């Protein structure tokens, strides 16, 4: 039951991330390689979360892998980490876009001013 709660809480975040990536790609705001890498990243996250229950079942009773079952605190912590990855990922993209815009703007202003200066 707890594993289902974990999947149900993480799934909307991953879905949001997928919608975000596809929208950005279709609008031409991100490159094909970034689109591919982001899809792989979020697919890996959702596969690991869905697969956590069978992985736990497999590892239980094995000397090195044996651990206690998923607690509510574990669920909250995992969801928080996935959500943080989502936020950090989005912010990093926005920061890079802004950096790029500022650099291009600075470059263009400098060139235009130099041309204006050359004419006067």
């Amino acid at each position, binding site marked *: 039951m707890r594993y289902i709660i974990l999947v149900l809480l993480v799934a909307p975040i991953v879905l949001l991330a997928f919608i975000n990536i596809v929208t950005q790609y279709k609008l031409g705001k991100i*490159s094909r*390689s*970034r689109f591919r*890498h*982001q899809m792989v*990243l979020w697919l890996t996250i959702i596969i690991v979360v869905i697969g956590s229950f069978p992985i736990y079942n497999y590892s239980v009773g094995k000397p090195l892998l044996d651990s206690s079952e998923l607690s509510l605190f574990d669920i909250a912590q995992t969801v928080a980490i996935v959500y943080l990855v989502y936020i950090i*990922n989005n912010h*990093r993209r926005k920061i*890079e876009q802004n950096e*790029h815009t500022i*650099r291009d703007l*600075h*470059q*263009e*202003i*400098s*060139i235009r*001013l*130099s041309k204006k*200066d*050359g004419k006067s």
Partner: protein
Amino acid sequence: MVSQRHSVCLIIPAYNEAAVIAEVIKNLNKAFSKTKFIYEIVVIDDGSKDDTAKISKTAGAHVIQHILNVGSGGATATGLSYAKQSGYTIAATLDADGQHNVKDVIKGIELMNEGAADLLIGSRLIDSEGMSRIKVVGNRGLSMITFLTFGVKVTDSQSGLRIFSKKALENLKWKTAGYEFCSEMLWRAKQQGLAIKEYPIKAIYTEYSQSKGQNNWNAINIVRSLIQRRIVEMFE
């Protein structure tokens, strides 16, 4: 717009180089006026605090002044963007401290004109005679790091003397603004499928250029930035 035939843009990114910039421009003008090339010398003053811009203008260069100091990579990008916008067919970047021999610049441009490559690098390390041992080690180390992180094999990844074809001018873009752009540029060129080649040059080491050059601490900073850039881009 400039004429398409043999038009060369000589780009000099400069930061606080008032002491030597006039001499560099004068030497370039003297040598290039005897060649078949239509040329323009463009100094990118990267927010200098001294009279670099004023002196460069008086010496006959076209000066683009950065409002802010963004770093060598940013200044080079501005120069190449200007060359592209102005319709030059070949562009060359060289250091403002006078360490490059004008004959080597002309040789590189002639090689480019013959279609030798899309990005031609003047390598100081094919024959490193005259360069201090510590600089040889530092530069070879950075070339090795460039190979390990980006898979681009060159002998001198940090050379400031680079010649660009029209194709390279139109396609090359990089993200870093500091000295690490030298290695990143090679990576981007590889990604774009541009042909990268090297040719041997002899650097002129004066007391001034030795004092202005990168030190090995900066090399550590470059390595850190390059590895960071490589990791970040694994998720892009």
